[in-house]
């Protein structure tokens, strides 16, 4: 794994905008950054990223089985008790999942370590699937990347295939939703809608605020059409607690991601995975705050709220002293403490985190985000990668 400086395309803005990539610059700051890229060997990709991601996914499934049978675990994960049966049903029915992103610390030396699992509402999808793919093709054509280079990225074709298989019979009608006012979220949902169209689905969109409830218990979109299958880029832990939370079980709606993903997007997962497989090469020691075993953690460790997104409220501590933190609204439900990764890729004061994509639980893509601090936040920049021939 190397970080290599590469001349950006002189017209990169036009090139990425022709793909419909609207959020290459966020709040005036560069988000899509092609002034450098990460180079991997095929062995690094397959041995250190792809294979462990599959192993971790299987471990996560084992955890779900364990959690659904344990009121103690569900309570510690701060899952509202009135939704336990709803989550159990979704798992027992075998409701399929679409995608997720495992965030990994990896520097090319030794095994990748799981930082967290964005299993419910991951973004950075369109730029991973399409924009960096196009960058690679153009880079080879321009001669700035070696001919025969490749990329760990079959996201696009996997997403289309996954949409076809999410519900029987297919094609079916699919609604998609996200909050109003976030270009990044809307861009992600628009891309998934595009994939769903290519999977021949009948695709509708409504903002989450427009969703209504019909007299017969089903949800409906802004045009009052019943929602049978809903992709929601909106966290389960919020849906459980909002007014319509009580209507979920009676809605006869298949959600994507399915309710059982709420158990994986929770940082409590990290403590349970470590408990299930202590010493696993791809895991970092992690415990719930207050657990006496926290005393066994490294002096340098990270405090993460159970519910946190985009690095919000995550704190990096060294012997109790705060080194880095990000403010945010999370934390009321509790915290997990996790050893700080010692293999975070770092160069010139920049830190890179790998995002290993899974579609329908199959590892099939990679993204890298870089930040000036060890906590990857929503200010991080996206850098493309390639596999050396």
């Amino acid at each position, binding site marked *: 794994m190397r970080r290599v400086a590469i001349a950006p395309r002189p017209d990169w803005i036009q090139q990425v905008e*022709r793909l*419909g990539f609207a959020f290459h610059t966020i709040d005036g700051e560069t988000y899509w950054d092609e002034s450098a890229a990460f180079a991997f060997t*095929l062995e690094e990709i397959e041995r250190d990223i792809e294979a462990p991601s599959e192993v971790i996914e299987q471990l996560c499934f084992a955890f779900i089985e364990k959690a659904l049978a344990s009121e103690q675990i569900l309570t510690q994960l701060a899952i509202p008790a009135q939704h336990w049966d709803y989550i159990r049903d979704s798992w027992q029915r075998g409701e399929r999942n679409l995608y997720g992103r495992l965030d990994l610390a990896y520097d090319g030396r030794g095994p990748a370590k799981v930082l967290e699992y964005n299993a419910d509402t*991951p973004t950075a999808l369109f730029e991973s*699937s*399409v924009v960096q*793919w196009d960058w*690679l*093709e153009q880079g*080879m*054509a321009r001669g700035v990347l070696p*001919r*025969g280079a*490749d990329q*760990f*990225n*079959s996201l*696009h*074709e996997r997403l*289309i295939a996954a949409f*076809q298989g999410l519900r029987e019979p*297919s*094609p079916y*009608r699919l609604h998609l939703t996200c*909050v109003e006012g*976030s270009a*990044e*979220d809307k861009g*992600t949902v628009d891309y998934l*809608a595009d994939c769903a*169209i*290519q*999977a*021949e*689905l*009948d*695709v509708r*969109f*409504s*903002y*989450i*605020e*427009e969703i209504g*409830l*019909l*007299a017969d218990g089903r949800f*409906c979109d*802004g*045009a*009052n059409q*019943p929602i049978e299958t809903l992709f929601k*880029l*909106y966290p389960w832990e919020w849906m459980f607690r*909002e*007014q*319509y939370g009580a209507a979920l079980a009676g809605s006869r709606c298949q959600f994507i991601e399915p309710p059982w993903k709420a158990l994986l997007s929770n940082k409590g997962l990290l403590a349970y995975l470590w408990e299930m497989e202590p010493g696993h090469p791809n895991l970092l020691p992690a415990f719930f705050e207050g657990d006496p075993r926290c005393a066994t953690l490294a002096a340098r460790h990270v405090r993460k709220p159970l519910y946190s*997104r985009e690095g*919000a409220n995550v704190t990096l501590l060294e012997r109790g002293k705060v080194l880095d933190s990000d403010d*945010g*609204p999370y934390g009321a439900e509790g915290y997990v403490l996790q050893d700080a990764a010692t293999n975070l890729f770092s160069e010139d004061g920049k830190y890179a985190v790998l995002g290993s994509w899974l579609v329908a639980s199959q590892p099939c893509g990679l993204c890298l985000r870089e930040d000036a601090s060890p906590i990857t936040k929503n200010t991080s920049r996206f850098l493309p990668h390639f596999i050396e021939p």
Partner: protein
Amino acid sequence: MKRSTQIGLAAAGVLLVATAWSLTGDDSDESLVYNSLGECQSGGQLSLQQCETAFSEATAARLQDAPKYRSQGECEAQYGANGCSTANIGGAQFFIPALAGFMLARGLSGSAQAQPLLPPTTAACPPGSPQPECQQARSSSSGSSGGSGSPYGSSSRSRAYSTTSGRGLTAAFAGGARSASVRTSSVSSRGGFGSIARSFSSHSSS
């Protein structure tokens, strides 16, 4: 190969095709695929001469190995409308599947012969396959969908092939939105989701 073979975006109206891709039927068997001699020559992986050699090898192999039919109808039943052409073999006229592309093993120092790629057979196009090569018998479906006036556009394309031995090779995707009639029911409320996002003004994704 670890990346998608091609990417179509209905909304942006673009279709991106990898300059060359390996076929994952057998991962250890890395191959290059081109749809035409020109594509090979502009692809940059092979020299002009290597491309011409590969192309003529594939052309010859197609004549020799492709299934031969006495009638256009029989051939098109397997390879679709416009999927066949006539060939004069040993003085007799046959209908054989068209040359849709060719592939050759990468890095085998030219010792392996280029293989012809034919249009996909009915076997390579399972029922419901969205690939346009598989839709020759069907009317193409397209249309816009409802929602909040979001005009999700429709058309896109795909590549599927078969080999002379009948193996199917596909680069997935394509299609169009289909409208469906929808029953409505009376609305009892609206806006029961989204309150936490509003109160936090925080990111709901990661």
